[in-house]
């Protein structure tokens, strides 16, 4: 199994001179293809900054970051955009779907920037929605007409359409109640186990982190622990997906 993520002594500082704030103090780790990793830490620990670097939204001040074998630590803004389009699927805490736009169109949005024809986009988006266990009856609904749990599944489907090397989920259950959160976690586990997707989940809740194969703890910009999760929880899959407004 090749390494999808390889971080070597990543440091990140904001500001300069007297007001300099060091957020990451030298992070080194790697993630292999097909792993389900949770990055845990309290707020202020630097996990969000790490996520931005892993997601090619930002570059480290120093250190090297290889994503799928490619050094992305010193790329320009537009080159980073290409990397994100080709290699990364994002799932955000607040879903970030386009309002008043159909589920299908939301899911196929990343492919627009890959200049893919509409017919091909919709085939791929339909498959992604099926993989994310999103019921077909709601495909033509507008994204603001469905419940929070459903919205997060749309977001997961959207993260799948470009067939990314890495799915990066930032507090994906943060805006959901425990029951719908469970369904979302189940979806991630299914994607990881059945489709072999590499997933990095960023969270501050240890219950959520327990669903991953491996947990990395971050505190004050350093990795404190990085170990296999011996007591991995398996999320329950509710047969009936509730369409309530959570």
């Amino acid at each position, binding site marked *: 199994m090749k390494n999808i993520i390889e971080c070597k002594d990543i440091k990140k500082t904001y500001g300069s001179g007297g007001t300099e704030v060091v957020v990451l103090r030298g992070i080194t780790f790697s993630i292999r293809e097909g792993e389900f990793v949770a990055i845990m830490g309290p707020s202020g620990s630097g996990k969000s900054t790490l996520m*931005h670097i892993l*997601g090619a*939204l*930002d570059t480290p001040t120093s250190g090297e970051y290889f994503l799928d074998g490619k050094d992305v630590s010193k790329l320009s*803004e*537009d080159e980073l*955009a*290409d990397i*994100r*389009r*080709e290699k990364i699927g*994002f799932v*955000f805490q*607040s879903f*970030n779907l*386009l309002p*008043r*736009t159909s589920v299908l169109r939301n899911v196929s*949005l*990343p492919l*627009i*920037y*890959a*200049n893919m*024809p*509409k017919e091909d986009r919709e085939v791929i988006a339909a498959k992604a929605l099926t993989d994310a266990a999103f019921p077909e009856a709601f495909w033509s609904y507008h994204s603001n007409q469905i419940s929070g749990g459903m919205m997060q599944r749309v977001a997961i489907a*959207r993260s799948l359409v*470009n067939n990314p090397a890495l799915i990066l989920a930032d507090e994906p259950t943060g805006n959901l109640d425990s029951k719908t959160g469970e369904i979302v976690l189940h979806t991630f586990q299914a994607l990881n186990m059945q489709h072999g997707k590499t997933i990095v989940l960023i969270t501050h809740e240890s219950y959520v982190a327990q669903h991953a194969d491996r947990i990395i703890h971050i505190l004050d910009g350093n990795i404190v622990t990085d170990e296999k999760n011996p007591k991995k929880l398996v999320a329950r899959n509710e047969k009936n997906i509730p369409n309530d407004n959570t």
Partner: protein
Amino acid sequence: MTTRDLFEETYGAVTVNKVRSGLTMLGIVIGIASVIALVAVGQGTQSSIQSSIASLGANLIMVTPGAQRTFGSNVRGAAGGSETLTPSDAAAIESVSNVAAVAPEISGRYQVIYKTNNTNTTVLGTTAAYEQVRNTSIDTGSFITDTDNANSNRIAVIGPTVLQALFAPSADASATPAMAIGNTIKIKGIQFTVVGVTVAKGGSGFNNQDDMIYVPLGAAQHYLLGSSAYLTEVDVEAATQDSMAQVQADITTLLLGDHKIADPTKADFTVLNQASIVSTASSVTSTFTTLLAAIAAISLLVGGIGIMNMMLTTVTERTREIGLRKAIGAKKTDITTQFLAESVMLTFTGGVAGVALGWLAAVLISSFAGIATSVSVPYIFLAFGVSAAIGIIFGYYPARRAAGLNPIEALRYE
């Protein structure tokens, strides 16, 4: 992003908030419509003035009594007030080379009576050449002939306005030329027989060639104005357009010699050619058109600022969407293009609606206010171009602002 996707995304974004897009577009609609309508009024006025001057006659040179107006001189003899041109001047002008025809004129205003109808109109004494020189056409009957002139026959050719004033059977029935031919009218109490009616030329005010009675020059001198009457004008037709300058110069030299005037600036007559009248009138009306267009352009500018305002609001509102688009791989140029496309779509649609509205306004202005309008095709294309340009100019700053957003901050934006 393909063009089709760009169009779909843009259409979706513009139609999401229909009321706001519509109101913003309204600024451009009004701006473009006012440019189209006001320029149409300006150009219509210009072309109607030019055509009424052109209808005076082809290659026309007018010699009038009174001093030439020159720079530095504030004194000018009232037109027709000076008595310097004589029939012998007119005869002398005929010998100038490249002169096709010469029509001397004397005129006065008289009360004209037919049975119980009467009207006050201009009576013009002239010769047969007038018909050719002044581009006058006869509807029914005939114009003054050389024989009429030689014999000072008491015959009259009347304009259509005079025809209606004297021969209309009742207030709401109009007269036909046949009702007039052969009948006798009284001008200043003297009987003249109507032999012809001219075709309506249009025109208004003091230049109305329809409200006129033409009589032989000899008859006018003999019966109306007195045999020693001076000419009020001599109309000369040059043989060709190119010879006009030469004819004008030769007439000036000839008359200066005949009138024994050494200093051309003290000439007691004025030689005007039609082209110079047209160019003077054109420069006045084109200034007028420019002024109207400038006023309309201000409203277009205000519309453009409205677009910019809305686009800035949109960018702020959609900060998270921009963040997301960047996170899933949109480049700066993708975001810039998308927001520019939105503002151009707004202004271009506004431009199309504005052209239609402006055209409609121009048609309504001509039909209700009676002002001639002419919607010019180049201005329509210009209006489309300007509206698209406004979209680009006023959309550029908001689009750059959107494209420059940091994706991390944009995603976090509340």
